């Protein structure tokens, strides 16, 4: 997708070879792992988690994996689900569509009964038909492009706010701060483009603020002087970057070096400790639209402490969502009294008031959160902290 056109092709071949072999062994030796599971086998219940383990989004993948593992350990210590232990099956998506398809196929052939992964929207999107065909429900903790639910797949549930809800939060903050003009910049990926167009249409429908520039950049480059010139020419009061942190950090740095006097806001894909490192001194004062992180949540201290104890590091973005995804999956399996996909989907739809970090859960008709729970963060001394909870 981003850089490795050549890489992707070769990887595709390599993974195709691997997949055929693993799929075959699953068919021959596994004796239909899925069927065995749903009849109340005593083996562990497998949860699939396709997340970025390599590539530029790998740091977030580690936070997600740890968050999920924490929930798995807690549930197992408490006796598991339906008398069986949970087991996490982590596969790499590398934030790349080809790799995520390979990862999802591998998870399916490993016999997972539910998926609790999904970070990059562009990589999560092609996983949907694979899990759907295998009758496996997906609880998506982080990826949040509207495209994920627009297809209307019954097995997809999103527990992160959607692009639409993020745009609404962005607009609310823009109006609150009385920014008169806004420039929107994305990186041409599904997730990023979604927030850009959604924010643009909401701002235009609202009418109080003017969009003076809406443009895209190519991810994976170092020099963004052309977009910096465009922004300097359009003179917006606020630049809203909707892509990921690598390019975000470079653009912030280059904007500040060019003498940009307005404010900068980034979307949740850029909320990563590395953003401030890459952006350098100019990062302070940059706003971000983000769902609650452990640092900004009230009453999460105990949880943070047990996370630190387990992994010897601080939790990061999407640790809580991944933790909640596993707990939600366990709850749904318990309610369904079975690991059958259709029964779990019915149980997920029926869930009402399940306590999560983002508040009590009830899915909307399109399987998203009824409120996104987005807040505004600001960078202070290189760290994100809560600026405005928009309540």
């Amino acid at each position, binding site marked *: 997708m*981003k*850089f*490795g056109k*050549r*890489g992707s092709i*070769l990887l595709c071949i390599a993974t195709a070879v691997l997949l055929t072999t693993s799929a075959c062994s699953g068919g021959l030796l596994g004796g239909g792992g899925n069927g065995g599971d749903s009849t109340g086998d005593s083996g562990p219940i497998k949860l699939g988690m396709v997340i970025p383990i*390599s*590539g*530029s989004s*790998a*740091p977030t993948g580690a936070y997600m994996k740890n968050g999920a593992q924490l929930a798995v350990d807690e549930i197992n210590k408490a006796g598991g689900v339906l008398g069986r232990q949970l087991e996490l099956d982590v596969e790499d998506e590398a934030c790349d569509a080809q790799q995520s398809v390979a990862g999802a196929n591998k998870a399916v052939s490993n016999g997972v009964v539910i998926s609790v992964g999904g970070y990059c929207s562009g990589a999560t999107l092609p996983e949907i038909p694979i899990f759907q065909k295998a009758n496996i429900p997906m609880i998506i903790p982080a990826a949040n492009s509207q495209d994920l639910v627009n297809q209307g797949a019954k097995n997809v549930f999103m527990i992160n706010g959607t692009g639409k809800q993020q745009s609404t939060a962005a607009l609310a903050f823009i109006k609150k701060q009385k920014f008169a003009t806004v420039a929107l910049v994305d990186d*041409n990926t599904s997730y990023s483009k979604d927030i850009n167009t959604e924010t643009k249409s909401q701002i235009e429908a609202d009418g109080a603020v003017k969009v003076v520039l809406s*443009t*895209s*950049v*190519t991810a*994976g*480059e*170092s*020099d963004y*002087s*052309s*977009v910096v*010139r*465009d922004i300097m020419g359009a003179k917006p009061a606020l630049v809203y970057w909707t892509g990921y942190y*690598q390019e975000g*950090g*470079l653009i912030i*740095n280059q904007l500040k*070096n*060019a*003498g940009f006097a307005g404010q900068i806001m980034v979307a949740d894909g850029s909320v990563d400790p*590395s953003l401030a*490192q*890459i*952006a*350098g*001194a100019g990062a302070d004062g940059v706003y971000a639209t983000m769902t609650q992180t452990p640092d900004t949540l009230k009453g999460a201290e105990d949880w943070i402490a047990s996370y630190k104890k387990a992994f010897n590091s601080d939790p990061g973005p999407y640790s809580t969502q991944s933790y909640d995804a596993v707990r939600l999956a366990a709850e749904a399996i318990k309610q369904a009294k079975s690991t059958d996909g259709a029964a779990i989907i019915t149980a997920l739809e029926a869930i009402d008031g399940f306590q999560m970090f983002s508040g009590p859960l009830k899915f909307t008709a399109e399987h998203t959160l009824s409120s996104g729970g987005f807040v505004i963060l600001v960078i202070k001394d290189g760290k994100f902290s809560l600026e405005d909870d928009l309540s």
Partner: protein
Amino acid sequence: MIQLIWDGLFVGSFYALIALGYSMVYGIIKLLNFAHGDIYMLGAFIGFAVLTSVGGIPASLSIGALLVVMLVSMLLTGTAGVLIERLAYRPLRGAPRLAVLITAVGVSFSLEYGISALAGPNPRAFPIRLEGNVFVLLGARISLPQIILMLIAAMLMVLLNFYVEKTSTGRAMRAISLDRNASLLMGINVNQVISRTFFIGSALAGAAGVMAGAYYGKIDFLMGFIIGLKAFTAAVIGGIGNIKGAMLGGLVLGFVEAFGAEWFGGQWRDVFAFAVLILFLTLRPTGILGQRVTERV
């Protein structure tokens, strides 16, 4: 307008430095060394490793430290280039050109994923950040680091030009690019000269890698891919195999990108740059300087 020209010049001088290595290697053994962009990446990572092992460097010394690190990195990437030629390309010298080309792609992968395995796949913030005073000249915002980096690039290119034009090794390089067998018969140590060519080309790319790390502040193991393609474009525009052409091609590509982005919008910048590559390949495959200067290196 002035800003556009300045931005184009600045980016173009990076392209030119990397395009030189492409062009020199092509000139002397007719190989498109697709691993060249990854040598640039390697240079940035060597710079990173040296700087982090040294520890903190006061901001006042950052230019001096940068020059030292750049020299170290140039030596090491140059050596890496020689090793790559010795291990991967020399055994295939008599083989069909397609085989060598595929080998070059393989070397490129080995470098990318080797570094990814050694240094981790995550992007790193470069320990030195060149941030200097910005002043406005004729309406363009120009910063001190930009001027320093461009001076370094220009100096390296002048040195290279002198080396190729005036020294005996330079003469040998030009002779080999004209006729390798005849050069061999004239008593030129062809293998040694080819090794030197690889050393110089790779060292220039390594220098560009350190400069990019210090200026942009971020390095990652795939950073050489797109810029490698752009340097190739620059080499083709200028006339591949031609040293002055590579320098000119780099600057022209910088301008093409800056003006393309201005006229068609920022998201069309790369489309425009590579469209120019296609135009050149169909209309004038020898590039701007390809025919006028017959002597190639």
